[in-house]
């Protein structure tokens, strides 16, 4: 059946089997392989994307359920050469090692910072509990989210003046 979605600002229509999961739709039908598959129980969060602005695990959504939705994947975070603050912060703070969990981790963080622009360390750690990382021990990820939070608040402050 046909599904039409807008991913990273581009509108796509594709014919998919009804059972196709959104993550495989992104990876295999659209070739957007930045979204990863790390488990089969919706536990790891490597496949997290923004669906109409909210973080979802794309292994838990059927492609057809996303009909008409606006999706942001890791490939859509930067504006041209301008990294999104969360990307910049993950780079600056060494928030990644093997990089496999990173796309999902960053999109979950973006969702958090939209809801809570100035989270405490505890709030950050809590918000990231649906995203698993085996490499970093999470500390540099927490630092990165704090740093992104500062950058984004400063940008808003500068824009407001």
């Amino acid at each position, binding site marked *: 059946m046909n599904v039409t979605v807008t991913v990273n600002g581009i509108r796509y229509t594709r014919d998919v*089997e009804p*059972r196709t999961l959104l993550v*495989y739709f992104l*990876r*295999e039908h659209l*070739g*957007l*392989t*930045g*979204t*990863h*598959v*790390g*488990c*089969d*129980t*919706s*536990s*790891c969060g*490597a496949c997290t994307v923004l669906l109409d602005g909210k973080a979802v695990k794309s292994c838990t959504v059927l492609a057809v359920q996303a009909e008409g939705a606006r999706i942001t*994947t*890791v*490939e859509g*975070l*930067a504006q041209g050469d301008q*990294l999104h603050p969360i*990307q910049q912060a*993950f*780079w*600056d703070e*060494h928030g*990644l*090692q*093997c*990089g*496999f*969990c*990173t*796309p999902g981790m*960053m999109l979950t963080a973006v969702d958090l910072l939209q809801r809570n622009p100035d989270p405490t*360390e*505890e709030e*950050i*750690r*809590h918000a*990231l*509990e649906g*995203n*698993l*990382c*085996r*490499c*970093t*021990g*999470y*500390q*540099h*990820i*927490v630092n990165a989210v704090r740093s992104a939070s500062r950058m984004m608040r400063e940008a808003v402050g500068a824009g407001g003046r």
Partner: protein
Amino acid sequence: MAVTQIFGARVRRREDPRLITGRATYTDDLVLPDLCYAVFVRSPHAHARIRRIDTTRAKAATGVIDVFTAVDLDGKVGTIPTAWLIPNADLKTPPHPPLAKEKVRHVGDAVAVVVACSRDEAYDAAALVEVEYDVLPAVVDMEQALRGDVLVHDGVPQNRAFLWTLAGGDYESAVKEPGVRTLRQRLINQRLIPTAMEPRAVVAQYNTGSGELVVWSTTQNPHILRLLLSATAGIPEHRIRVVAPEVGGGFGSKIAHYPEEAVVAHLAQRLGRPVKWTETRRENYQVTTHGRDHVTDLEVAFRDDGTVVGLRVRTLANLGAYLSTAAPGVPTYLYGLMLSGAYKIPHISCEVVGVFTNTTPVDAYRGAGRPEACYAVERAMDLVAQELGLDPVEVRRKNLIRKEEFPYTVATGLTYDSGDYERALDRALQMLNYAQFRADQAQARRQGRYLGVGFSTYVEVCGLGPSKVVGSTGFQGGLWESALVRMHPTGKVTVLTGTSPHGQGEETTFAQLVAQELGVPLEDVEVLHGDTDAVQWGWGTYGSRTTPVGGTAVYLAAQRVKEKAKRIVAHQLEVSPDDLVFEAGRFHVRGAPDRGMTIQEVALQAYLAWNLPEGMEPGLEAAANWDPSNFVFPFGTHACVVEVDPDTGQVKVLRYIAVDDCGRVINPLIVDGQVHGGVVQGIAQALWEGAVYDANGNLLTGSLSDYAFPKAGWFPTFQTDRTETPTPTNPMGVKGVGETGTIAATPAVVNAVMDALAPFGIRHLDMPLWPEKVWRAIQQAKGGGA
């Protein structure tokens, strides 16, 4: 003029831009024309005879290209080899067929493989393969396995894979000396599942015209894989190219050569089409190697003043159903040799029995043998302290090897390179404010709160390793490392390394050390790895060897490039090489700074070759193969503070302090990251992680929703610091740091929990310290006291 110091700087990683933008290519991201997909049909039983496999319905399904069973691979795909043949241990190496033949030996053992035009079609067809089994009793418990009532392999009586012994000093005599007493403790070091976030994957493409096979695999060691594939897939080594693209973590679980790699490579050749296989997480938990799984009977001999005179360990090591690539070496040499820890223990006796069971094969997992040894030794120190009513810090201090005693040869035969163990301990105590903590702890106890502190004054062996030495342990390879540094005509540099980092960041650290040595901008250095067509040779990334061994090869190659450049400058400026000074990327004549050439100018001259010294070959590149004379021995002190809730048994980590010494540090940011990651894995073993099988060999923790994988909210912010004691083993003075966290953290946490539970008279509990276990122990202690 300030010279920029790149070596030692907190440089952001150059790997990151591709990873944070989703532009990195992991194996499963690869798509090739005409690609087809393999799915393995796996046994639901831990132990069974295969009576019949019917592939008729599967073969007729939509999109199916073919279905294969063991019979179809006979004589075409070899058995999966073991590469660590430990000597003098009566090692049994029963065959590991790539697809199970008569018997399946663990849940997940593959019996057939379906190849179809799409992934979904392959999965659909795999469900149509009909397998009839005669289910056999399974053996999971090691002590039961050793009774031999159920045999995993018919040719291995009592399921005993090996019996390995090690003796240093004379333990039996030492315990009889006057004033020496002993204590005993059984320690269970439970089975863990490595869980790299990227599951394994293989893509193979065979060019029927050229006869070349290309294999992309999630491997930590592409050259070893190529070598082993030439044996298992039967394609000559020089016609195979193995590529490790972006690899999403390994932790030892991507060292082994796996059946899927051999089968997929063979199928690509057989079908004349590229084939992809990607592991699901459930498969990852059932078939990718696990780690640890020891049962140890420990006896410690000590004197009343806390001096430890001897250690005797008898360990059963679970190897699972088959001997994985490095499996026999992990619970023997990588374990027994480290049983002296950071201490002067003159008498050590060790016996390890390797046991086959109907479980997933066990091999290296971050630390591989050394965490198990460190756990035994560091628990021993606390048990001695508790027995004598002494402070665990003072017992450690009494036994630590002192700074002036290095190099120090321990009873197991290893010679530790360098160390200042007390300095790291003192620093940790200072960060902790130990005296204050003990006062707070006493105060808290009066209020019914149970705080505890635990220490681990660890040392580990890494930087594997001197080829002659590892050869004497039966490892079927050398562990030297190769590098090539090539300066291009424009002065830009390409570095090729035989190590294969997969998250550790050596594209950055190696660029730093080359930029430092050659005096070129950091961004002018490119580091390539993970492709056997690009890199001459390599033994890969594991055993915290990448920087101390691979990095040293890179360093030496850079030195050779610099040396050649110097001879060219001397020739062109008509001076002696001895009269040249190299500073910030430029050679100049001593005392005449304006007479000189930049290294970039020399590079162009080397390629133009218009005016080179007589007999010198054109070009500016150098290779180096570094074979270290010894291992390296990072060390430090980790301290953990916990609170145990007596009403729930819940353990909360309140503080974690890590003082590590990995010699000279090239990039502190990356070293911090390595420590954090390892510490989390180490804490997780102590408190949460554990693979659980039922009596029939079903893996109950078979998914990420069942296995207690640690999450961000379970940890406080760690406090880290370092001391820096260079090693004399290599010219840069660097030691490895990738495994220190898992080695050090686990006993520190368990010691802390036991310290918290001391008022209840609880002496020891086995990991993982799940709340129920702790709660029951408290209840029992209370009941017993009533």
